């Protein structure tokens, strides 16, 4: 659709180049005389939503934006430790409300602007001062998740903003002040949604408006057409072909760190997991994410590289206590927990290396407790408990998502099928309901499903990112009211002392598993696949791969 005039002039050259390319299609890593290198094509599960990550809350947009924009803090390559990003290092005040970031020197944006503290603060101030449709949670999900509200909240339901100010104390020092400490910091500063854009970009988009109604927003042009947004990442965004669902990234040669191994990287959306695998096998793409567990072995045998990420997720069966009164009874919740053969799900459906989860976050996180109450697979006990509760003939609706795989949930339909068969085996009548992913999220969030499958991959290394997401306040997704738990959660989260906080988390985990708001099913390591001739980037448990680390094998 969008063509730069210069490309037209280059057309004959490009044609010649691609002819050669076709001739050497089998050896894609080879460079041809034109100096052009074959692009690295990665099959993603969906198209990106916006070029500006601030507006997004989905993994595919963030996979793209992490290559183009950078955040103040990052996670270590291949791990979950927080390290410096655009900020070389940082300090927090005693009470955890003042964060001082010492920026890297010599960082330039794609458009030539230089990174300084003013630029960082301009970004934060912009977000803080957004108004109108920008304040819809559809358009600023992560801002609201971390900082609560805006400078001027237009919706009374929004909490007061946690953000106070950002000051550039010197050229390379930005000081961000927040109202109170929360364990979401410093992890919050690493979220891809808070990718720093250049001052020129900010100027250009200052008047950009979101039009349309709730649920039917039309995003401003700069989020759709490359050319306006500029970050500091190892790649620049070259083209977003929306009808092909394809984003083309180019190596940014003035990147402050090691320049990217690939000259060109293309993210191409292939929603179907089978199609992704076939595309890799056919050589159409050179890597893809969300590999089905069953495909791992055949791919490895066929010579593909299928690195496995560390476990950093949890899959759970949620009990919504309001839609089905029986679920408000502890015995029923326990009965359902005993009824499900979680080991079988782990053994037969989840990828190798998965484990039955005993609590609502993986054991790789501090705060995991070895002493939580466990619920063994025991159908007889389940039946007894149901009998005791007077719900021997329980009927319950059970939702699962269709046409989707998540890192923690490879085959939702099969997992549903196994659980529902287990439940039926102890006398529960299951009414199946399936929804497409976005609709599913909406319905489960608003508490329309009594039982449903969902999970979470951590954004950063803190237990609160898991349990705090669900059990910090009364909400429709769970429909449970446990004020004590909520209070304890708030207290733990606002404790700046690392050790005390972790001990509190352990207690919280024990408490949660007593209450049993849902059944944690598993934590499993998701895989990602690459062609044999690719030197893949270090895989990240947080699914935050930095593709600049990848390159063609010599």
């Amino acid at each position, binding site marked *: 659709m969008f063509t730069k005039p210069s490309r037209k002039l280059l057309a004959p050259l490009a044609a010649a180049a691609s002819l050669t390319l076709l001739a050497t299609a089998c050896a894609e890593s080879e460079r041809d005389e034109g100096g052009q290198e074959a692009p690295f094509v990665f099959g993603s599960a969906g198209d990106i939503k916006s070029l500006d990550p601030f507006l997004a809350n989905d993994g595919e947009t963030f996979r793209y934006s992490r290559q183009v924009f950078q955040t103040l803090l990052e996670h270590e390559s291949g791990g979950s430790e927080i390290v410096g990003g655009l900020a070389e290092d940082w300090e927090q005040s005693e009470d955890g409300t003042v964060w001082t970031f010492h920026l890297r020197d010599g960082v330039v944006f794609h458009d030539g602007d230089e990174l300084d503290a003013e630029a960082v603060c301009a970004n934060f101030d912009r977000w803080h001062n957004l108004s109108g449709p920008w304040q819809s949670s559809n358009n600023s999900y992560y801002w609201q998740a971390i900082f609560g509200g805006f400078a001027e909240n237009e919706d009374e339901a929004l909490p007061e903003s946690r953000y106070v100010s950002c000051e550039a104390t010197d050229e390379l020092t930005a000081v961000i002040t927040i109202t109170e400490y929360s364990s979401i910091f410093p992890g919050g500063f690493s979220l891809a949604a808070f990718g720093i854009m250049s001052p020129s970009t900010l100027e250009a988009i200052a008047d950009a408006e979101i039009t349309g109604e709730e649920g039917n927003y039309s995003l401003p042009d700069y989020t759709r057409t490359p050319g306006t947004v500029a970050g500091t990442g190892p790649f620049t965004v070259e083209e977003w072909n929306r009808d092909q669902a394809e984003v083309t990234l180019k190596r940014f040669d003035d990147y402050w760190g090691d320049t990217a191994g690939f000259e060109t990287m293309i993210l191409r959306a292939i929603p179907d997991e*089978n199609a992704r695998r076939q595309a890799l096998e056919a050589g159409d793409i050179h890597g893809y994410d969300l590999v089905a*567990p069953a495909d791992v*072995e*055949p791919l490895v045998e066929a010579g593909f590289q299928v690195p496995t990420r560390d476990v950093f997720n949890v899959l759970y069966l949620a009990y919504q206590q309001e839609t089905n009164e029986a679920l408000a009874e502890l015995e029923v919740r326990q009965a359902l927990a005993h009824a499900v053969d979680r080991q079988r799900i782990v053994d037969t459906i989840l990828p190798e290396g998965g484990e039955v989860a005993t609590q609502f976050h993986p054991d790789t996180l501090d705060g995991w407790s070895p002493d939580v109450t466990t619920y063994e697979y025991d159908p007889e006990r389940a039946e007894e408990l149901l009998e005791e509760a007077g719900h021997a003939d329980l009927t319950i609706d059970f939702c699962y998502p269709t046409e989707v795989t998540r890192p923690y949930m490879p085959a939702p339909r*099969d997992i549903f*099928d*196994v659980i529902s068969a287990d439940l039926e085996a102890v006398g529960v009548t299951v009414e199946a309901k399936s929804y*497409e992913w976005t609709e599913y999220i909406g319905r489960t969030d608003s508490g329309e499903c009594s039982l449903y499958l969902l999970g979470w991959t951590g954004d950063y290394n803190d237990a609160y990112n898991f349990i705090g997401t669900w059990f910090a306040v009364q909400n429709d997704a769970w429909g449970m009211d446990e004020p004590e738990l909520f209070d304890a959660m708030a207290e733990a989260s606002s404790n700046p002392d690392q050790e005390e906080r972790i001990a509190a988390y352990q207690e919280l985990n024990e408490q949660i598993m007593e209450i049993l708001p849902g059944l944690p099913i598993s934590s499993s390591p998701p895989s990602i696949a690459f062609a044999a001739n690719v030197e893949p980037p270090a895989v990240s448990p947080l699914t935050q791969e930095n593709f600049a680390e990848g390159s063609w094998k010599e």
Partner: protein
Amino acid sequence: MTTTPSSQNLPGDPGTAVPAEAGGDGRTPLLGRRAAKVDRLAELMGERADDGHGAGVWRTAFRRLRRSPMAISGAVIVALFLLVALFAPLIAPYSATSQAWGNEVFPNQNVFVGPRAENWLGLDNLGRDQFSRMVVGARQTLLVGVVATLVGFCAGALLGGSAGAAAVLGGRRGAWYDNAVMRVIDMMLALPTLLLAVTVAALVGPSLTTVMLAVGIAQVPIFARLLRGAMISQGSRDYVLAARALGVRKRRIALAHILPNSLGPVIVQSTLTLATAIIDAAALSYLGLGNPDPSFPEWGTMLADAQRFLSSAPQLAVYPALAIIVTALGFTLLGEAMREALDPKLRK
């Protein structure tokens, strides 16, 4: 999708309907007079039956069917399918939903269990007996096909029948009504059946009922057109003219004479629609608009669900695929053979 224009002009059998009418008569003078009219009509019909084909078209058609290999193979397949579907609970050795062998299959490691002594077709991806699922699935598939066809048949017959009757007998207002109905029908025909079904299904949300409704509704315009066409062609027949000349009431002509004689092509179409319904139902399942409960065996759902194992355990997809293809083929063969047998143009 399987209709051809020639199917719209199939004549029914003029000889079957009327003699039955001639029976109950002669009680009151009024009835007697009407009976006399009917008798005269029957006489006319008798003459018709005499001059042309002697035995009824149906009987000749049946004779032809018995000799047609197409019809026989179709009938055998359909009969087998019906038997399996009707006696599914007796045939299936195990429960179709119990994951009794759940610990023997590991889809995450591509470990599947193929045919063996206790499970004739092996196990499915969750350790259920595939043979039992296929057998019980036949029943669901039949249900979907029959209900969908019935929906299409009934609604289509109502629309098309009324339009046809109005066109033949209704005069100017009838023609207007016919025109209006046919506009709607044409519009519905404009939408490919599958798309029509998809929109209906997307509207109501995924369930087995949705599939049946959606596929059925998609068939309505075809049935309506067919019946109307047949009725109009019957309407110009001599016996209808004769009946009108004799002053038989219009409703009676339409219901007792034109309609029964026009049903031939519609019945043939029903057979073909069963095939289409089964295939379209499978497509809807693939689109995720089918039964949300995956444990419930239905061939379309099973096929759609097993696609992902096509390279590692192709049999899981191939069994239901073959079953669908063969069953649809059976109905199509039978329907096509019936159409050929009834169509004088194709008769040789």
